[in-house]
């Protein structure tokens, strides 16, 4: 009796080291410009070739500007890194979707939209948000650069099998509650380290009724509670999403694949190391108030008092209050904000742009707000134009930028200035994450939209 995770893992183990890790075969290796150059340099030093270049897909995403992408990258170091990726891919025959390529975008957005992410696969990338792909019933997890080098050299990584956790979410979602709110709710309950050592399977009726894009948002943020990854058993929603994508199996190949895909679920009496359950009805639009993703609350709640915080965590809490310039016990509703960022591998897909547009449509952006609406990929950008969203956004005072990781980690010039408040649909509110001294409040696209219109933290339900 096996869990879904065990089925996929066990089918990819080439050998096991006694009292040590397993040698795990990798079906798809995704790379980007930041965590790969030292891995290629390591291979070169040892004079090893890339073992299976056809199983690797590269994209430039972390460093690239989100305006004027037709011009050379101005930041010299960013340019050097992006150029190095091109050079390495050319040298080793690796497919690269570089800047301006019609398939370019954030690696975790483009792999699913191209059909490169498929149920039953093992997927790694030198990026912690690789967990996104678990939405398709894959084992997908982030690795460090030494492991990128291992995967380049052998198409395998050495990994210790994590423990298994299952999280059920059942019931019907309240108005204006999205998958981002669900995951922020869960992390706020179990903390930023509550799933360390585990791989999470998400299950329950709420998950079943979700689109693939919404599922990706949930799996994406599994890492924010410490988990190596999240996984959701594939179903008709998954199969419908995959079919007819550029690199998905076609015709009889797809028929054969479907037979395998349909076996990908946990057996009825499979045993998990830990199980948790949440009710959709309990979840409301969320916002974070602190400097880790576990410090979240219902948008209408108040920041906890120091006495409500576990003693061990009080020092971190105090530090984060100081950093955010917040007073314990206060509500964040109506707090003036300066920036709104919509994008990232968490919420940079077409449904996110649609949700944001649906709320701002017919309103005007508040003057004090600088808004960066950044599509996750060229294809998302194209789709947003085709659906007329770009025009609607423009009429409301917003413009769509060009794809990339952008202000999620502020490696390019999209940096939130020191001391400014940013309502961000990204995944991390760490100190300095969006720029030195930037103050990040994580939220859904709808909360971002409502706050962009009013210029202050606003409950989206008053617009809907």
């Amino acid at each position, binding site marked *: 009796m096996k869990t879904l995770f065990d089925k996929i893992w066990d089918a990819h183990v*080439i*050998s096991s*080291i*006694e*009292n*040590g*890790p397993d*040698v795990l*075969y990798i079906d798809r290796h995704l790379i980007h410009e*930041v965590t790969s*150059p*030292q891995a290629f*340099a*390591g291979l070169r030093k040892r004079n*090893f070739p890339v*073992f299976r270049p056809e199983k690797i897909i590269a994209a430039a995403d*972390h460093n690239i500007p989100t305006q004027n992408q037709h011009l050379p990258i101005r*930041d010299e170091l*960013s340019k*050097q890194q992006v150029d*190095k990726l091109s050079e390495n891919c050319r040298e080793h025959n690796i497919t690269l979707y570089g800047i301006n390529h019609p398939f370019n975008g954030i690696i975790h957005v483009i792999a699913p939209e191209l059909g490169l992410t498929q149920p039953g696969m093992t997927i790694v990338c*030198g*990026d*912690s948000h*690789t967990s996104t792909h678990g939405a398709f019933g894959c084992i997908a997890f*982030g*690795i*460090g*650069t*030494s492991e990128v*080098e*291992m995967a380049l*050299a*052998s*198409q*395998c990584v*050495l*990994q*210790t099998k*994590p423990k298994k956790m299952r999280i059920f979410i059942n019931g019907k979602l309240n108005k204006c509650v999205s998958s981002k709110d669900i995951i922020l709710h869960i992390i706020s309950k179990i903390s*930023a*380290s509550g799933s*360390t*050592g585990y791989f999470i399977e998400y299950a329950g009726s709420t998950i079943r009724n979700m689109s693939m894009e919404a599922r990706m948002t949930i799996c994406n943020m599994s*890492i924010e509670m*410490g988990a*190596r990854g999240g996984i959701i058993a594939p179903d008709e929603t998954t199969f419908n999403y995959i079919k007819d994508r550029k690199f998905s199996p076609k015709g009889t190949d797809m028929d054969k694949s479907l037979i395998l895909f349909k076996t990908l679920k946990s057996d009825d009496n499979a045993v998990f190391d830990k199980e948790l359950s949440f009710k959709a009805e309990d979840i409301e639009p969320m916002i974070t108030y602190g400097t*880790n993703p576990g410090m979240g609350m219902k948008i209408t709640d108040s920041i906890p008092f120091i006495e409500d915080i576990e003693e061990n*965590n009080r*020092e*971190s809490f105090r530090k984060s209050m100081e950093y955010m310039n917040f007073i314990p016990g206060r509500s964040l509703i109506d707090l003036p904000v300066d920036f709104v960022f919509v994008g990232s591998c968490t919420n940079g897909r077409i449904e996110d742009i649609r949700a944001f547009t649906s709320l701002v449509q017919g309103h005007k952006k508040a003057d004090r707000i600088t808004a960066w609406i950044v599509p996750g990929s060229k294809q998302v950008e194209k789709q947003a134009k085709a659906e007329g969203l770009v025009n609607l956004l423009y009429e409301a005072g917003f413009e769509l930028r060009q794809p990339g990781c952008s202000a999620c*980690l*502020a*490696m390019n010039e999209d940096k939130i200035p*020191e001391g400014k408040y940013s309502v961000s649909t990204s995944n*991390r509110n*760490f100190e*300095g*994450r969006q720029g*030195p001294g930037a103050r990040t409040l994580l939220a859904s696209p709808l909360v971002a939209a409502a706050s962009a219109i009013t210029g202050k933290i606003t409950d989206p339900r008053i617009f809907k």
Partner: protein
Amino acid sequence: MPIDKFEILESTCVPLPAENIDTDQIIPARFLKAISREGFANYLFRDWRYDKNNKPVPDFILNNTEYSGQILLGGKNFGSGSSREHAAWAIYDYGFKVVVSSFFADIFKNNALNTGLLPVQVTKSFLKILFTAIENDHGTIVKIDLPNQEISLAASGIKENFEINSYKKECLLNGYDDIDYLISLKRRIIDFEKIKSFENEN
């Protein structure tokens, strides 16, 4: 990259009691633009260590000359967040050989081991003992004994055992890295691929 060998270390410690020290604090993203592994020490805890005018922040522990050593002590959930191995490189490049905490984030732990930086996970109570001892005497010597998987306070002899999987222990003791091992399995990897593609076609 082959790693440096590690066996036994006796050193003073640098205490950083904050919890949830994430990899964005250890090394902010804007310093990840290098294409080599060297030189990250300058950026270690950059935004805690230096102010916006690049002046050292006097309160920050790495700027306090009373503390030094090759062991970094951190609060619970050390190394959470991004998978950037640059975080482990920066700590190692600065001169630390060991990080001690009551809880490490998974990816960081792997990255540290692959860099030759030993993550030593201790109980909450032992971590508290360490922090208190160092607060009382900055010169407190802590001994890390990898062969016996033991961490101890040299003066009082108070000690605790720590876990490490025996494969990684061997790697550290001998300076091996995983790539040599994986390359030695190439034949089996190719056989595995053949079986897999046969299964997929039938």
